[in-house]
């Protein structure tokens, strides 16, 4: 979602200098200055329409047909949507995506907060710089490369199992990605590792914006570090937290690449997620209609989860 929304477009028009009364009138924004504003956003809007809105509209259209992608299609109405909710495999993939939120979102945000607070405490030392770099590194690595590297680490002869054996935990070693009970958490761990850096850096940036005078005043009033964190740091980070949670929740719900590389949905269907299921349905089973219906459902779920987060954390 990179294009300007209509709301932003109106803001853009309104920020032009002009009589205050015209800015206030609801129609005024769309008069002459507004028109110029629309002209400015036209190129971006055209791209947005062609590459975002049109594919969404087409996907919705396809979701109403039974189609193999090449031959003639037949009208199916909402039968494909019924299938998404009644087929146990498809529904299970949605549940898996929801479980992944714990790993992709909760862990990076909570751990990110702790790490950012710690790094801030030692902000002046060289260690802080090193820590920041190391933690952000996963963001720079392509997800596919991360997936491959973790597949090696988590394999039965990988480093993780070697370490476990070394510390005397040889009994619990296993092929983490090939075991029904551990495959989903193992995939989630990779996601947590990738997203932790982003959250830490965002929260750290947010913390550096907080006025030091606030902390000083709090300390004069006798607040301890915990109280400072709860009463100053956390409320000031509202917006950064909103961004972190939104981005990571969407990453969990729409996950594809990490899972495609590390497990391809297996073993069984234990790590199947909607993104991967859509891909299999469209390109391997050639059921474009069902794939499109699942894609629309996924989009609605993402919006339904992301919008309230935005609303709850908006600054008033």
């Amino acid at each position, binding site marked *: 979602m990179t294009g300007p929304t209509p709301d932003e477009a109106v803001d853009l028009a309104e920020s032009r200098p002009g009589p205050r009364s015209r800015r206030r009138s609801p129609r005024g924004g769309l008069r002459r200055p507004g028109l110029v504003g629309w002209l400015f956003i036209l190129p971006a809007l055209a791209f947005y329409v062609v590459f975002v809105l049109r594919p969404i*509209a087409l996907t919705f259209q396809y979701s109403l047909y039974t189609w193999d992608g*090449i031959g*003639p*299609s037949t*009208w199916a109405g909402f039968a494909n949507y019924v299938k998404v909710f009644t087929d146990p495999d498809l529904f299970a993939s949605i549940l898996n995506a929801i479980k992944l939120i714990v790993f992709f979102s909760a862990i990076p945000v909570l751990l990110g907060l702790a790490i950012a607070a710690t790094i801030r405490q030692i902000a002046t030392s060289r260690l802080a710089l090193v820590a920041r770099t190391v933690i952000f590194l996963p963001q720079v690595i392509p997800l596919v490369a991360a997936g491959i590297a973790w597949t090696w680490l988590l394999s039965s002869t990988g480093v993780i199992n070697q370490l476990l054996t070394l510390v005397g935990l040889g009994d619990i070693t296993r092929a983490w990605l090939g075991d029904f009970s551990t495959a989903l958490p193992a995939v989630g761990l990779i996601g947590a590792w990738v997203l932790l850096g982003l959250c830490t850096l965002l929260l750290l940036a947010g913390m550096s914006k907080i006025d030091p005078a606030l902390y000083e005043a709090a300390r004069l009033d006798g607040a301890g570090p915990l109280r400072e964190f709860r009463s100053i740091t956390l409320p000031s980070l509202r917006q950064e937290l909103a961004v972190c949670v939104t981005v990571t929740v969407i990453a969990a719900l729409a996950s594809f690449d990490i899972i495609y590389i590390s497990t391809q949905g*297996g*073993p069984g269907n234990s790590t199947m997620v909607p993104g991967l299921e859509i891909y299999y349905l469209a390109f*391997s089973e050639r059921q*474009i209609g069902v794939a499109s219906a699942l894609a629309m459902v996924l989009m609605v779920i993402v919006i339904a989860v992301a919008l309230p987060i935005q609303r709850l954390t908006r600054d008033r």
Partner: protein
Amino acid sequence: MTVIGGALAAGCAAPGSDAPEAQPTNAATPSTAPGCGTEPITLKGYFETGFPLPKTLTEEFSKQYPNVKWDIREDQFAVITQNAPRVLADDPPDLMRLPQVSELVKDNLLKNMDGYAQAFGWDKWPASQLEQMRLAPGGKVRGEGSLYAMGLNFSMTGVFYNKKLAEKVGMSAPPATLAEFDDLLAKAKAAGVDPIAQFNGGATGGLAFPLQNLMAAYGPAGPINEWIYQKPGATIDTPTNLQAARHLEKWIKAGYFWKDVNAVDYATMMSRFIDGKGLFMFDGDWESGNLDKQMPGDAGFFLMPSAQEGGKLAAMSAPLTFGVGARAKNPDCAAFFLNWVATDDKARDIGVEVGGSHPMGPADAHMPDVKPGTVTESTLAAGAKIAEDNGAMDFIANATGAIYAKSWTPNLQKMVAGQQTPEGLLKSVQSDYQSQTGGN
């Protein structure tokens, strides 16, 4: 707003309304012999990455016919599978490595090769070579009807074994019955040797290889082929297949497979087997050349023994399928190339040395000399035995486009984890098969 409206309205026709029309079947023999002519010509190919045979053949072909140049695109097989319909519809290559073909024929994307078969005399070759590429009108049933693809050679699967490890467990000759095979597996386990090297991870359940071999050991190949060919009423849930699935479960429970088999992919299996971590491996002759190079003299091969003494042998055996796009620019030259691959001595040599499998063609055609004692020699000999017993089957993973990734694989992985029974496995696959083939 008009921009938005226009762009959104662009997709209002029903999807697929621009689908390719059915081509005239053109079964008559072409009036002039198909060939590549003498004018410069560029053939467009779409081949599989990591598989040197087709490219080596095209290089040799251009040496013999210098007016033919090649424009080759390569992708992984999984990518070709996903791209095939779209590529054949939008930008049809002259020669293409094909995945499962039924759906492509149904959508009128492949050239009917009956005319070429008659002109070149392919219909006089042993019929079993072409059977898997014949389809009834509409692509509904395989194994009969018009020819829609050709093979560069035909490959076959069985059991590879590590000769050094075999010696260690006291195996002096390949097992003659399933009971003897079981005995060897138990001996290997007792001697601390990994009995079976196999993959079963990701979206590719490699236990389908031993499973189908066990199906062949217990029952005839015919009904399995009928199921793969989507003959009406065919079922995989038969009594002998159930015996096979139960036998596989017995192997799993006995610990004959690696503990992490559900996380092992094909490449890992190969490297572990070559490293000596596994006595047996269910795989195909496309690895013969590779194994002769990587573990010279140490690899052996035998066909899966029957459950009964002296019973007929069967194996998964399928042509390396190539097709010509229905709207390709140079179909005659492409067909001429396919005929050349099967009949030219040099091309047949390449087929065996580089491809590791048996070339297509007439039964009495030239066969290259193979070094005695190599795996390639044993796989070629095994191919002759399968032809004699009429035991060639296609792979149960090829019955429909999605049956492997979405049905066999998850069910076999569940079986390894003790979450699926032999009965449940066959019932579940059969039910998926019925929904994918439209309930026949």
